[in-house]
């Protein structure tokens, strides 16, 4: 752990976003994770994405559970709302918060232990309900805080640092999220920010349940030969289906794309995703196709990354429940509780 605070000085040529903030303004406290932790790169990517989207920090709520990954919200968006909940209970807390105040941007930060073991059920239900959120799993396949036992996402056959082979089958959170109806599903790698930052930005702009599984090597316990979540292994087996740029407002398309290589996806809020295809046949609007593609490549030992599925016209839990536009937490008491006459009338309508 670093003893000194990160110096306040920043590069004099740093660009500012529409709000006049530099990316440094989106930082939190200095990380207390091990040196080189992949989670710190995810933290940096969240900072970068929020900076690029010119998000007002007070409009974000970051919610997490327990674990190395769940500590990270302390390291980014130091001026945002935060809730460090019970182990595996982030999805419930987030769902509740979202129902009470639909106006905030919800960032659920979790890990493989928090989401694939103790909170597996919570994860599943928040996805199937279509809570409007960005759910990020910082996935290192190992219990780092308890010194390196396999987690539920560790691949069968992979080796621990001590040389023990994992005999359990792995949970692929991306496959589950697709199956449970997430409307934005992606996988990325902490060591590839050019892919990860726009994915987070697109997920934040997505309305509905967005899920990103980020493979994040654990330097201390899972970055050795025989691990399938190490920097070297992921770099060798990374099969990116696409790369993307997020275009907000009237931003001109800054990059020149070769014709036929780009697919534009317009999201609910008017933002656009320019998807640069790497795998020409991959269609990110085909849920079934994505599931098959994932399964086929997983069998070959490949790690499929990129934007795997998106439904730009998705709706969310509030629409399912037909709640009012006004956040519930700002409704006055007489609106929330219109009195016994109103209740009688309502009851009468059900008789």
């Amino acid at each position: 752990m670093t003893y000194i605070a990160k110096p306040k000085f920043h590069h004099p040529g740093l660009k500012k976003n529409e709000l006049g903030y530099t990316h440094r303004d989106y930082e939190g406290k200095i990380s207390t994770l091990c040196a080189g932790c992949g989670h710190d790169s995810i933290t940096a990517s969240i900072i970068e994405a929020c900076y690029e989207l010119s998000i007002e920090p007070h409009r974000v709520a970051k919610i997490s559970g327990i674990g190395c990954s769940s500590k990270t919200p302390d390291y980014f968006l130091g001026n945002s709302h935060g809730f460090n909940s019970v182990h595996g209970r982030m999805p419930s807390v987030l769902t509740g918060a979202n129902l009470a105040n639909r106006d905030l941007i919800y960032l659920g930060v979790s890990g493989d232990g928090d989401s694939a073991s103790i909170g597996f059920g919570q994860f599943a239900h928040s996805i199937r309900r279509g809570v409007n959120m960005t759910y990020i799993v910082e996935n290192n396949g190992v219990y780092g805080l308890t010194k390196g036992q396999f987690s539920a996402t560790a691949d069968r056959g992979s080796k621990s640092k001590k040389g023990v082979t994992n005999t359990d089958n792995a949970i692929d959170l991306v496959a589950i999220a697709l199956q449970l109806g997430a409307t934005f599903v992606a996988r990325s790698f902490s060591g590839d920010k050019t892919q990860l930052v726009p994915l987070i930005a697109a997920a934040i702009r997505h309305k509905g349940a967005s899920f990103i599984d980020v493979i994040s090597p654990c330097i201390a316990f899972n970055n050795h030969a025989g691990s399938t979540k190490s920097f070297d292994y992921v770099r060798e087996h990374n099969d990116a289906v696409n790369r993307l740029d997020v275009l907000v407002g009237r931003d001109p398309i800054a990059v020149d794309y070769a014709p036929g290589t780009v697919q534009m996806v317009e999201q609910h809020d008017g933002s656009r995703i320019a998807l640069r295809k790497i795998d020409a046949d991959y269609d990110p609007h085909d849920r079934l196709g994505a599931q098959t593609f994932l399964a086929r490549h997983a069998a070959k030992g490949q790690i499929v990354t990129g934007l795997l599925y998106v439904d730009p016209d998705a709706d969310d839990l509030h629409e399912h429940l037909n709640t009012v536009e006004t956040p519930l937490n700002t409704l006055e008491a007489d609106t929330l509780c219109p009195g016994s006459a109103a209740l009688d009338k309502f009851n009468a309508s059900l008789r």
Partner: protein
Amino acid sequence: MKPTDIAAPDYFHKVVDCQWACPAHTPVPEYIRLIAQGRYSDAYMINWKSNVFPGILGRTCDRPCEPACRRGRVEETPVAICRLKRVAADFKDDITQRLPRPSAKNGKRVAFVGGGPASLTVARDLAPLGYHCTVFDGDPRAGGMMRSQIPKFRLPDSVIDEETGYILGLGVDFKGGHRIESMKALLAEKYDAIFVGSGAPRGRELDIPGRKEAAANVHIGIDWLSSVSFGHTDKIGKRVIVLGGGNTAMDCCRTARRLGGEEVKVVVRSGFEEMKASPWEKEDALHEDIPILNFLVPTAFVHDNGKLTGITFQKVKAEYDAKGRRNLVPSGEPDQTIECDDVLVAVGQENAFPWIEQDCGIEFDKWHMPKVDPKTFVSTNPKVFFGGDAAFGPKNIIWAVAQGHDAALSIHKMLSGEDITERPLPEVYISSQKMGIHEWSYDNDISNDKRYKVPHRDKVIALKDIRTEVELGYDVKLALGEAHRCLNCDVQTVFSTSLCIECDACVDICPMDCITFTENGEETDLRQRLKAPSLHPDQDLYVSSDLKTGRVMVKDEDVCLHCGLCAERCPTGAWDMQKYLIEMTQAGSTCPTKSRSAA
């Protein structure tokens, strides 16, 4: 780009901007750290070895280090390096035991013309090696322009006495009041080598109408300053005009304020911003209620039958031609006459060598300057060397010191029968500063403090006595605060390609966005692709060899805080913080393994 060769002594030297900018290459961060630790004597000795006159320079240096200071690119103001140097001198203990001992003479005799900073530096380097050094000066005491031209309220005699005394105490023979009038005669005395450090002793004349008639009240600045210094002049008229915009003009006007000048004005041809005087010297003059009037060209001294009454000025404005050169052209406004009782002319200094005969084997160029080799400082007579203002015209003390070291090396090599164009490489030490996982042997916590002001004596008191020093210097507490502002640029970020796993931890933590991992390319192209814009192309890029992914690590050295966070967050030790100390070769240094050619 090719991978950076960090073994080349210059690469990391350039990163230590202050040391690189200093003509004598004083290891600034090294002595500032010692000041922070309260080790003033050690800090003083580092300075003494490198720049010979820490107490004098700590008050008067032109400070090329400060505009170069990295801190000035990170926030508004650089570290007050110069005044910290004074702190080392002010708070040191008796250091006489640490000085070299006068050694047994080697039988070789070296004569010095002039007893200023250049000559004294050469003598200090040569005397401990056994040379018999004889310094001739027209003034009774050593110091040259440091004693005669710099006012006592900036530099007290006691400081000059102390620091020239350390040198003369090495067994140097000082012949005060002995002006050399003939080079021929000096050569005839069969010295093994002669060093000319006679400065630029002649003030430039201002030949405009009325000069001769009003001569009684028109004084040449440096002559007048030296006359004040030696007590020959102790008053001046109530209304004084100082002509000129350099540091001598600033010394003249402030001196005039102390000798009875009530309305002292500085008048310059150029604009205020383009004046040659250092900004802090202008500030000091303004603080003493001396207005500086600009864009006025003197055209005539006005006099009433030989009694000066004022100066007439033409008003000008600056115009820039296509090449950006400035021309001062008449503005068309009517001329302005400013009344005055005395005028001090400080419009430049010139060299003068009337005492060097034509047949001494010393050739002069068309500007009447001796032909001197800029690396070895030898003249066309192989036994005669020049240094300081005498060699290349008026500069300042620190340049004289730097040139003195080089000339001393040449003299030593020549008298040892070696080729003087072969210059030994500097000595370089580099060592890791790692003490523990997150502990370094230097203070890497960056101070956010703004530059501390040096306390000044109350103006009313200061203006009463010409010998009362205006600046009081930092006290220990202020010095500590200022020392903490130093960014330790000599503690280098050293990268080992083979250890890097490309986890991005350094990129994520770097507060200044200095580090980028990207595909290699030409420098101009790489500079376009850095994480933060490259603002200063003169600041080097540190480029690694190819990493596993085929990319390279590129670090823009420009605004690195040397906070060591990259190394703290690096899981494999691919980054390390290593202190780099470079010692310039001086006469008698022993490390002649490799050498670079002076040609």
